[in-house]
């Protein structure tokens, strides 16, 4: 019988973590990425990934238009700089670009909010104004509403996580990247990905009931 503890990476030095979080194995479930076929052209790849990328950017940024800008920028950079790369390398490259773009926008927003608070012109426009939503034209409005509420609850729970845990959870669980591709997209080691994901799962497990 294979011992799972041997397969676990050592925790990074200098990082304080409890024993449960450090050595709790994350199941190596077959991810959605493993099932997805490799796109033949960059256009097909972008078409297949654009909605998920937009949703993930929206979860992180809490702004659909900013998320759209981030996705468009990531697409542009991928096409300009990496379209000649093999198709197998596009997913980690694309998600890495998008991750950096999202981080840039989050930092810019933080600075902007600080300046606004400092100049006493801070307003809670983003929070108070009702967000425009497209009218629901679907055949099952009740189901769509429940799905939207569940998505909103999950997004809120993910946004409450630290940034690296957010990234690990969204890339690994929502997008279904493998550990190696997630590590490449996040610019860290595979052990760090597992650690961040383990902590994210610990935090989100308690909120699972809100998603139902």
């Amino acid at each position, binding site marked *: *019988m294979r*011992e*799972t*503890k041997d397969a676990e990476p050592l925790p990074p030095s200098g990082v304080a973590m409890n024993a*449960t979080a450090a*050595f*709790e*194995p*994350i*199941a190596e*479930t077959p991810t*959605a990425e493993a099932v997805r076929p490799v796109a033949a052209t*960059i*256009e097909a790849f*972008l*078409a297949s990934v*654009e*909605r*998920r990328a*937009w*949703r993930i950017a929206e979860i992180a940024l809490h702004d*659909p238009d900013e998320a*759209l800008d981030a*996705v*468009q920028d990531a*697409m*542009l950079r*991928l*096409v*300009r700089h990496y*379209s000649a790369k093999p198709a197998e390398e596009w997913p980690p490259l694309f998600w890495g670009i998008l991750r950096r773009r999202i981080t840039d926008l989050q930092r810019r927003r933080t600075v902007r909010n600080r300046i606004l608070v400092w100049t006493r012109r801070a307003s809670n426009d983003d929070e108070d104004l009702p967000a425009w*939503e*497209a009218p629901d034209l*679907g055949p099952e409005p009740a189901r*769509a509403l429940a*799905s*939207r509420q*569940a*998505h909103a609850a*999950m997004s809120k729970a993910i946004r409450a996580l630290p940034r690296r845990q957010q990234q690990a*959870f969204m890339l690994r*669980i*929502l997008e*279904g990247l493998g550990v190696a591709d997630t590590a490449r997209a996040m610019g860290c080691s595979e052990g760090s990905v597992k650690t961040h994901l383990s902590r994210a*799962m610990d935090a*989100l*497990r308690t909120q*699972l009931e809100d*998603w*139902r």
Partner: protein
Amino acid sequence: MNEMPDNTFNSLPDDADVESRARAIFKAACEEADSYHTLRLGLARRKALHAGARHSTFGMWASVAGMAACCALVAGVAWMHFPRPTNPGVTSASSASVAPVRADDQEEVPPEIASSQMEIVENLDFYRWVATQPAVASAPSRGAR
């Protein structure tokens, strides 16, 4: 024989549940994206592809232009630094029209010195003659001491 840690059995189902639930919600959210943002995503993709194609064409021409500019620069530097062959016909014609002034003389007498000591220059023949007579001039002074 218990090779697995005890907490594995308690945590794995929860992790799997969180994963499956999160994926289901995310998949539904992606499928139910509104038409406005779906359309804008398609436009963004086409714009990115178009800009990428334009960028690659521009990059190709930019590299060609850069190589041409480098070649021109190298040729210019080589033309300036390599010794050029003198044209004997031009040299003889110009030397015939110019007064026979030696280059050595121009270097020996700078303009400021020439203006202040023009008298010495004019009597240069006399001073050259004096220079040939040092033994005759210094002989009486040694004898007087």
